[in-house]
């Protein structure tokens, strides 16, 4: 919503400077988006009289002029053919920046004659393309006055962000009313004197649907002259960015922005018969004033004459009955249209008009008649002619309602104690009717233009808004307990531990979109229609992601394109299995691509493989306190992993996660070169560790531990876990730790076999182990492992 300062002052009698007005607007809740000082670069240019214009002694086409600004006289050499003694022009002294070129005007010696300024053309001022002559200013313009003021450009344009609830402030008067209520001036009275009707309107109005259009006041005007608008009107519209079209059209625009009263004006000469307001019939169409043809349906409120639809109520008029320079008679429509229907119509047809914007927010139901009178008077004043009597249809909807503002409620809700008498004065200044009730309470009836006030809280806001939120004392929020409770519930706390653990392991955290391309989702087990966006911002962001990995893989590709081929990225975020709250999984996913670290003279980097990522996945689980000893690993990974180089982490029937090298076909589809391996851990699937801070008792043995190594030759396909599990089970009390320290295939072993070497640490609890006991254990271990694995001890 834009206005100029001068326009605002046609409604507000105030001496307040612009800065005070702007500050007040902001503190009333009308944020100022900007103030445009249109004068800007034109400020130095003033009106001067050419007191003499003599031929240049050394040049035929130049003249030596003496310009009088009222304060001083300056000699100027000028080449304009229209420079002449006695004229008034626009003068710029040396040192001025010329708007068109940005150059600084310098004193000069032109063919032997000093020139200390310039008489300007419209071209040089950036106001037009005319550079054949200097500007000829009206003879009655005072000397020394800024030329910009003559053009009305010294009036700053204020751009106000009106919140959606304040429909009443979509007109300049509404803004003025708020400022006046806040003590920034006096709201000037509005002349709503009725214009007497001279004749009976030949056009009648019929409303078929009183819900769609509760009220329609019409008036016929004839004998009009529809030329260009006078300068004051054209300039105001131009100032707020509207193009003046013709007086009649400009008046409707002016009524919209000045008084927030949109009107429509039909060229009555082009109407046939009466007007009917009804819902459109399927198949009806309208060529609208924006040059577009719209197909209508039964949701749209239309205004028809005998020939058919001529206008869309509250949205846009029709081309066929629009005003033109030839228009001599009009029919003015001042109506109320249902906000919901208006909004829906505009949305469905894709029409954004100033009228729709206002109708859908709700207009002042009690101002329709006054608005019509004011518009009538303006049209008759500017276009001549005479007006009919008003043609009424429908009725003003009931808008009166009242709410109680309890004594003390401003303090108990708003935190600011305001005397009821002061609250009453503020509300009355805003247009409300206030009556005292029992116990110091007030009964408040909001004004007709404040449909947004629907309860006591709104009344409190009005009082606080006018008092100023700055007045509310800031009070510390009292503590509910001396010490704060933990802000994070256990699942969140565990997730944060995973996040920090992964970062500590060298992973860089990414945050990526929750939606991806459908084809990518399909590669990762998703892509169903249930999770497809109806209105994605682009076709490749249309599917809720079933996994974080496609985004990490794409990120690795982008980084590789920039020369960073070795990446370790993770994200801790959502994956979507279905559209229920439970279907939203919290996942920690990591991707390593390329090598584990840069080449180095000492440490050999490793390619990203399943074992690196298995370690990462287990670290994530450990950070969550998952029972690591009970996690089983199986080798049936989901389809996006390499079928032979990946694993699944399970705890009983629950899948805690996956890890492994990515499927070559998936990498190819996502345009990433191997090696690349990943893990996914499903945080919700990991059981909560036992509550309580106490740790189990620590039993330390005083007896020497013993370590023995064993190597077994087993079938190449034997999972190492089979051997380890068996070895652990030989004597659970004695075996403290088993490490698998060597895996060997090749020379010395027969085809299809491998050697697995383990170091077993025995920790006796009661006495130091004897050689015989160690020997006995070793025999049992070898026998049990050989039996369980089908292998044999390597000799």
């Amino acid at each position, binding site marked *: 919503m834009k206005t100029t300062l001068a326009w605002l002052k046609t409604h507000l009698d105030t001496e307040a400077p612009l800065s005070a007005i702007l500050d007040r607007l902001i503190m009333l*809740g009308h944020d100022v988006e900007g103030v445009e000082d249109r004068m800007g670069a034109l400020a130095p240019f003033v009106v001067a009289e050419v007191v003499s214009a003599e031929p240049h002694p050394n040049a035929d086409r130049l003249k030596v002029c003496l310009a009088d600004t009222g304060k001083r006289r300056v000699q100027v050499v000028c080449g304009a053919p229209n420079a002449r003694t006695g004229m008034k022009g626009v003068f710029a002294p040396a040192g001025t920046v010329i708007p068109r070129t940005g150059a600084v005007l310098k004193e000069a010696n032109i063919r032997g004659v000093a020139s200390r300024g310039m008489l300007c053309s419209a071209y040089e001022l950036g106001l037009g393309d005319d550079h054949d002559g200097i500007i000829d200013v009206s003879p009655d313009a005072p000397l020394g006055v800024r030329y910009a003021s003559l053009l009305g450009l010294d009036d700053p344009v204020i751009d106000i962000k009106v919140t959606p609830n304040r429909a009443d402030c979509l007109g300049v008067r509404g803004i003025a009313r708020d400022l006046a209520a806040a003590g920034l001036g006096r709201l000037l009275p509005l002349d709503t004197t009725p214009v007497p009707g001279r004749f009976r309107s030949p056009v009648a109005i019929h409303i078929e649907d009183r819900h769609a259009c509760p009220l329609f006041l019409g008036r016929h005007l004839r004998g009009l002259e529809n030329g260009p608008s006078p300068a004051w009107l054209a300039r105001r519209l131009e100032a707020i960015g509207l193009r003046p079209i013709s007086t009649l059209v400009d008046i409707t625009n002016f009524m919209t922005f000045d008084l927030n009263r949109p009107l429509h004006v039909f060229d009555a000469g082009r109407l046939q018969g009466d007007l009917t307001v009804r819902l459109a019939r399927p198949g009806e169409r309208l060529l609208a004033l924006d040059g577009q043809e719209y197909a209508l349906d039964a949701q749209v409120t239309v205004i028809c004459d005998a020939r058919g639809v001529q206008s869309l109520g509250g949205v846009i008029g029709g081309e066929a009955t629009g005003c033109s320079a030839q228009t001599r008679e009009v029919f003015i429509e001042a109506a109320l249209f249902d906000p919901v229907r208006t909004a829906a119509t505009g949305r469905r047809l894709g029409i954004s008009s100033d009228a729709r914007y206002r109708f859908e927010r709700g207009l002042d139901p009690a101002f329709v008649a006054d608005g019509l009178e004011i518009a009538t008077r303006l049209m008759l004043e500017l276009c001549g002619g005479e007006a009919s009597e008003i043609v009424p249809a429908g009725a003003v909807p009931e808008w009166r309602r009242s709410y109680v503002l309890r004594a003390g409620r401003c303090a108990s809700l708003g935190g600011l104690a305001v005397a009821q008498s002061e609250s009453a004065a503020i509300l009355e200044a805003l247009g409300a009717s206030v009556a005292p009730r029992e116990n110091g309470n007030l009964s408040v009836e909001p004004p007709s233009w404040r449909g947004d006030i629907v309860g006591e809280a709104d009344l409190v806001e009005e009082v606080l808004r006018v008092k100023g939120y*700055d007045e509310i004392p800031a009070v510390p*929020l009292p503590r509910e307990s001396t010490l704060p409770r933990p802000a994070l*519930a256990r699942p969140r706390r565990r997730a944060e531990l995973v996040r920090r653990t992964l970062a500590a392991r060298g992973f*860089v955290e990414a945050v990526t979109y929750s939606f991806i391309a459908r084809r990518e989702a399909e590669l990762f087990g998703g892509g169903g229609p249930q999770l497809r966006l109806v209105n994605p911002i682009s076709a490749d962001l249309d599917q809720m992601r079933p996994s974080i990995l496609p985004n990490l893989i794409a990120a690795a590709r982008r980084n590789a394109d920039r020369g960073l081929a070795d990446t370790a*990225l993770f994200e801790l975020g959502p994956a979507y299995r279905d559209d229920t709250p439970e279907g939203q999984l919290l996942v920690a996913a990591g991707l390593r691509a390329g090598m584990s670290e840069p080449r180095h*003279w000492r440490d050999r980097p490793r390619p990203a493989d399943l074992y690196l990522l298995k370690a990462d996945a287990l670290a994530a689980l450990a950070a969550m306190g998952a029972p690591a000893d009970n996690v089983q690993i199986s080798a049936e990974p989901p389809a996006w992993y390499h079928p032979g180089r990946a694993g699944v982490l399970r705890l009983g029937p629950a899948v805690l996660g996956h890890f492994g090298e990515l499927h070559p076909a998936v990498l190819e589809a996502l345009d990433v070169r191997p090696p690349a391996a990943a893990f996914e851990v499903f945080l919700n699937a990991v059981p909560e560790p036992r509550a309580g801070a106490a740790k189990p008792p620590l039993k330390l043995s005083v007896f020497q531990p013993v370590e023995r190594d064993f190597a077994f030759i087993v079938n190449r396909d034997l999972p190492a876990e089979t051997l380890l599990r068996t070895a652990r089970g030989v004597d659970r009390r004695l075996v403290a730790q088993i490490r698998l320290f060597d895996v060997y295939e090749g020379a010395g072993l027969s085809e299809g076999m491998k050697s697995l070497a383990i170091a077993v640490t025995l920790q006796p609890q009661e006495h130091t182990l004897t050689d015989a006991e160690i020997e006995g254990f070793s025999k049992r271990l070898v026998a049990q492992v050989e039996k369980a694995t089908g292998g044999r001890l390597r000799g």
Partner: protein
Amino acid sequence: MQQNLEQDDANRLIEAASAEIDRADSPEALDGVRVKYLGRRGELTMLMRGLGALAPEVRRAQGEALNAAKDRLAAALEAKGAELGRAALEARLLVERADPTLPVAFAQTGRIHPISQTIDEIVAIFGEMGFVVAEGPHIEDDFYNFTALNIPPEHPARQEHDTFYLPQRPDGSRLVLRTHTSPVQIRTMQSQPPPIRIIVPGRTFRCDHDATHSPMFHQVEGLVIDRTTHMGHLKGCLIEFCRAFFGVEDLPVRFRPSYFPFTEPSAEVDIGCSRAGGELKIGAGGDWLEILGSGMVHPAVLENCGIDPAEYQGFAFGMGIERVAMLKYGIPDLRTFYESDLRWLDHYGFAALDIPSLVRGAL
């Protein structure tokens, strides 16, 4: 005479041995000397063995002399041995040389994304004020995202939300991607009785994409519901937050009336800044930056959650996490948050162990 003769033998032996010890230039040579004199058949050993044949009085004197000689010899051998050991160590150290200027490999360092770090900072501050973190689903239904928040279907605010929709379901309803974190207010109020103090960080979605809008971004929502909390508390709480978060003790904080369907009265919150010289600086400086929306929870919202607005009241607020992160850390472009550019993450990211805490002063 006999006695003197034996004394002379011992002295001569020691002289000879000492000379040989001096000449020994390696542990092996030294060991040769030891064997020659003190070995099983060494010269001194043999002399000592002969003692038994002597007369007792002679034997005593002779024994003492030989024992003294043996002790001297052993001491000389040990001293020489230590000397040779030192020399050998020095010689070894002369050749054991590594270049300490060679670059070492540091463990690969990860980073925490600025969004996560900022959320942790916000939680650390509000946590001190007794707020606890609540969360909710991203895929929401109309009731939680709009209707319960006092945004009925025809409300103009719905259009301004640029909502992402999921396909229509058989019953005609459509799920949406939540456009704000406010649905979690509703879910919380429905599931627990007041008093309530929650903050809700999380993903939000709007169907809008340009230099200053991302289709996905993060918000943090706050909600306080009890019997007495009023707008003065709202101001106090948010002023404290802004000053702690930006680390500016005298940061000016301004509350402006505004409009949100779910609060009444509503306030937009600005912080002071200066833009002198084209550089944005948070603090007193005559200019303002909008960072928060807030207000007293609308009675209709309380009613929608089954809380009696005649008995309970409170405030709610919401802010964009990326926005405050950009302001605090001088990150110029919103879109870069989601690009996963390793150079960006390394530069704007945080160390794994840099966990925000008011107590530790790590904010």
